[in-house]
């Protein structure tokens, strides 16, 4: 096991596992942002493992997850908008999560870029990093918009907020 694989395993254990606990427990206001953080961390784990196994083809899984992760979060936000509006997540907490996401992406992608060296692979890594950061931004904005929609709203018109 080399350093990259060890870093990937550590991120899986210390980053993805706590985020997964957040996804599995609590209300929607905690689960939805935690789901986004979990996919971001997992994408970074895939990048580290790809470097650790010396298999550049594994980067494709990270690329796919960087697109699908925010898409999944937007899906949850859209279908659980009522729950998010009834119990909106704290703005400060969302900001902290976004900052953690940005720092983690920078802390993983930049060393990987240095290790890869200039070339096509580095551009791909940078694209994945930008996609991850953008996805986090978009998902946070969507959660904030869903929470803001709850103000001044009467009885829930649709969605899944009944019997809860």
């Amino acid at each position, binding site marked *: 096991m080399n350093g990259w694989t060890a870093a990937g395993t550590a991120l899986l254990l210390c980053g993805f596992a706590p985020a997964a606990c957040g996804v*599995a427990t609590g209300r929607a206001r905690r689960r939805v942002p935690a789901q986004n953080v979990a996919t971001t961390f*997992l994408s970074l784990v895939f990048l580290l493992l790809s470097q650790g196994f010396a*298999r550049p083809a594994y980067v494709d899984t990270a690329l796919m997850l960087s697109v*699908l992760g925010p898409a999944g979060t937007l899906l949850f936000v859209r279908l659980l908008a009522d729950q998010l509006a009834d119990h909106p997540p704290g703005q400060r907490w969302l900001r902290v999560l976004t900052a953690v996401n940005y720092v983690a992406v920078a802390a993983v992608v930049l060393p990987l870029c240095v290790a890869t060296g200039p070339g096509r692979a580095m551009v791909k890594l940078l694209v994945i990093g930008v996609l991850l950061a953008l996805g986090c931004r978009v998902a946070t904005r969507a959660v904030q918009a869903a929470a803001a929609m709850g103000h001044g709203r009467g009885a829930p018109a649709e*969605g*899944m907020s009944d019997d809860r």
Partner: protein
Amino acid sequence: MTGELPVLLGLLLVAAAGTGAVLVRDPVRQSFVLSLLGLSLATLFLLLQAPDVALSQLAVGSALTPLMVLLSVRKVRRKARSERREERE
């Protein structure tokens, strides 16, 4: 032994997510755990050197399964609500 640690961790994640998906009874909450299970399975496939399987698992697990579950729950609840309204009228 240290070389097997990531695979062991992946297996543990899959076991925990699978058990959680069975134990959670509410379908909406279950959709979150199912998406976690999909992500854990994709990690395990990648650790077992099968990135192509991991790719398809990611597509199915992280977006499609929760979409199906949540849409079904939404439809069922909407139908139940309209039936209740009809009964009241």
